[in-house]
């Protein structure tokens, strides 16, 4: 009886593995087409004209900061250095308990000014608004703590322009980030309501971005390199294909451009979910598809910046369990979209894909590992076959990772050749060196989701050498 049950479990897990990986392979094929088209588009774009033209749509960049004293100045400086004809930077200090506001006041010579703004989105109390004599396009909002969504909504109330770009305070941006993000919007602002783009990861983003294109180093530690590979797979293998197929399900919080009127229509960022980005994307899809409106939410392959990655296992688990929780919360909340033709590709492909590869993944991963181990222990399964199976999964992952590296390198030629080689060599070992941490984090996230935990559990920022 136990044997039969184990056999069935192993077969179900094997089936799950094959189905999900076939889906990934199909997405990679679509991603190659999308990447090729975007590459041609990028090459035919005249960024000089776009960067000087008064017809390039102005953007309000909003950065929410909570206890970001180590990263905030570099982040705001990189935003102020953006090469874009007309933009403003709104940094919202969300009741930080550290020296975030003091760092900003000191670095940008800020003074308090009263600005009477529209209260389109209700937020926690705003203590003061600061302006800088040195940077007329910089506004700092100091408010009571209310979470990232609340801070972004406070920024939206202050924003003056038609498009807004929400960014993370721990991210350092390329000078052309906004131009790259807005290049498609400028061509069709009536239809393109949301854009996100590829971001890389580093222990110290400012240092990584200081290196020129083509020479950007990957962090030496394999732990960081694996996170980098994880981002590459997510952006190039998945999001590019989703974008091509009209179901871009997550405009990432570190760089998300939205048309302001769309955010006003859907009520801004929600405070009832653990994170704001994926839920907002689902909400916009749900509203526009329900109302039968034409729209596009895009993911572009251009590397717009580098975000800070956790440098310890504990921090990584904390971050990834939060991501798992918000995915579960969102997919469950929007369950009315599952397999509903009314919701087009989002309902018929996107949400089932998310359900299968993200929500149910920890269950199948743990079930698979446990049943295989028990089957081997009971002598029902040959350990050699188990090892061969692990090798097969490892190389399947490695092949998919190599696809992501190729897509990235074709697009940007960002990294040194030796780093590309290192990433390719590390790829097959992902299964044993990195994946177990992610499985654990996902399991923990699922458990916390079932318990109804919605806390942020922000990871402590990485220690850096003084500038």
């Amino acid at each position, binding site marked *: 009886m136990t044997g039969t049950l184990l056999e069935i479990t192993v077969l179900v897990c094997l089936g799950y593995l094959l189905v999900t990986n076939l889906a990934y392979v199909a997405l990679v094929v679509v991603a190659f087409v999308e990447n090729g088209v975007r590459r041609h588009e990028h090459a035919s774009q*005249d960024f000089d004209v776009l960067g000087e033209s008064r017809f390039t749509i102005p953007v309000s960049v909003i950065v929410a900061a909570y206890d970001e004293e180590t990263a905030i100045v570099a982040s705001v400086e990189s935003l102020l250095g953006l090469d874009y004809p007309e933009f403003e930077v709104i940094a919202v200090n969300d009741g930080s308990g550290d020296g975030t506001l003091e760092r900003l006041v000191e670095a940008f010579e800020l003074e308090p*000014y009263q600005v009477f703004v529209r209260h389109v989105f209700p937020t926690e109390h705003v203590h003061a608004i600061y302006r800088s004599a040195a940077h007329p396009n910089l506004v700092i909002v100091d408010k009571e703590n209310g979470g990232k969504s609340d801070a972004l909504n406070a920024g939206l109330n202050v924003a003056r322009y038609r498009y807004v770009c929400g960014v993370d305070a721990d991210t350092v941006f390329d000078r052309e980030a906004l131009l790259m993000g807005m290049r498609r919007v400028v*061509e069709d602002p009536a239809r393109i309501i949301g854009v996100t783009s590829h971001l890389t990861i580093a222990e110290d983003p400012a240092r990584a971005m200081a290196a020129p294109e083509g020479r950007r180093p990957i962090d030496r530690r394999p732990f960081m390199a694996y996170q980098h590979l994880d981002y590459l797979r997510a952006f190039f293998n998945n999001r590019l294909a989703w974008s091509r197929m009209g179901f871009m399900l997550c405009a990432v919080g570190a760089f998300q451009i939205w048309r302001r009127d769309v955010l006003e229509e859907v009520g801004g960022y929600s405070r009832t979910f653990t994170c704001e980005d994926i839920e907002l994307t689902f909400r916009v899809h749900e509203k526009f598809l329900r109302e039968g409106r034409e729209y596009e939410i895009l993911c572009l392959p251009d590397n717009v910046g580098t975000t800070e990655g956790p440098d310890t296992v504990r921090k990584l688990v904390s971050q990834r369990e939060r991501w798992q929780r918000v995915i579960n919360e969102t997919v469950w909340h929007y369950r009315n979209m599952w397999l509903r033709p009314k919701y087009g590709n989002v309902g018929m492909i996107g949400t089932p894909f998310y359900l299968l590869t993200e929500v149910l993944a920890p269950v199948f991963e743990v079930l698979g590992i446990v049943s295989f181990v028990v089957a081997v222990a009971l002598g029902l399964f040959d350990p050699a076959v188990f090892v061969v199976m692990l090798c097969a999964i490892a190389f399947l992952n490695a092949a998919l990772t*190599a696809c992501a590296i190729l897509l990235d390198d074709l697009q940007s030629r960002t990294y040194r050749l030796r780093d590309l080689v290192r990433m390719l060599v590390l790829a097959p070992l992902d299964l044993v060196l990195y994946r177990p941490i992610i499985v654990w984090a996902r399991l923990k996230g699922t458990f916390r989701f079932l318990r109804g935990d919605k806390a942020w559990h922000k990871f402590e920022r990485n220690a850096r050498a003084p500038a």
Partner: protein
Amino acid sequence: MDALVLRVALVVLAVTVPVWILLSLAIVVGRMRYERAHRGIRSTELTSREAARLVRRVSKRRPRTEWGRWRRVSALQRLEQVHHPAVPRLIHTVLADPDSRIAAAAIRTLGDIGDAWAIDLLVDALRRGNGQRSRVAAELERLAPAPGPKLLPLLRDWNPTVRFWGATLLRPYPELGDATLIDLTWDQDPNVRAAAVETLGTRSGAAVGAALLARLDDGEWFVRVHAARAAGHVLGAEAAPTITRHLAEERWWVRTAAKDALRAMGKDAVPSLLAVLVHEDSFARNGAAEVLQDVGFVDFLALDDPRSPLLQRIYDAGGEQFREAAEARIASIPVEVVRAA
């Protein structure tokens, strides 16, 4: 079951290991070739055979795939780099592509060429709507002043979108089309009125000023937004009393434009703003206080006479947070500066 799992695993291995190796080699070799190609000075020349191949590619009627269309665009751009004589003929076919992104690439090529015939084609593309009009406009503006006189006929086009772009693009040409632009401030289409008002905002003269003041009462809020900014720029303090009325506007964007216009006038706007401090509308009162703060009048009063009744009136209009912000600013000013003031 062992056999089944083993068979599946071996099939997966047999496929994925070679794929991983091949992809890795492709990445490394591709990157080495790319670096070698970019290390040396790249030849811009084309052999006649290469050129003929590229001309054929561009001349092809509507490639079936998007990929094929982009290859066509790349070929056109390569031919333009070497100033191939077939480019003027070929560009027509790409410009007419129904995919606006493909047409946009042709528009960029025309902007790079910048000759008289390229300008004519761009103006024609703007009129016909080949490609995104904002892209065409950006290229035409880059080529200023060359296209100037060629834009004037656009102001009389039957299509309001073309009139809009005509009026918008005339901004860098202060000597052209004043009278027609003034006529266009009465156009049936509000977008055209807004564009005409915006362009007139960069000019001067009594007729222009009168036209702009008239549009401050336009039925469309976005025309009033442009009119407020433009009138402030052209008429200066003369327009301040009229613009301050718009601090009490229902539309937030009009109030913001009025504040921007008054702020840009600096201290000249102060008398008009002081009159609004007792306005029945709270938006008008706090808007006036905000502009007085931004032009430095509040800080001046607070330094000069902190107990001044006028300052109290401004504080009353601005509210408690307004007062706190002003006091914090004053407190941060060094004592020597205060004494000097």
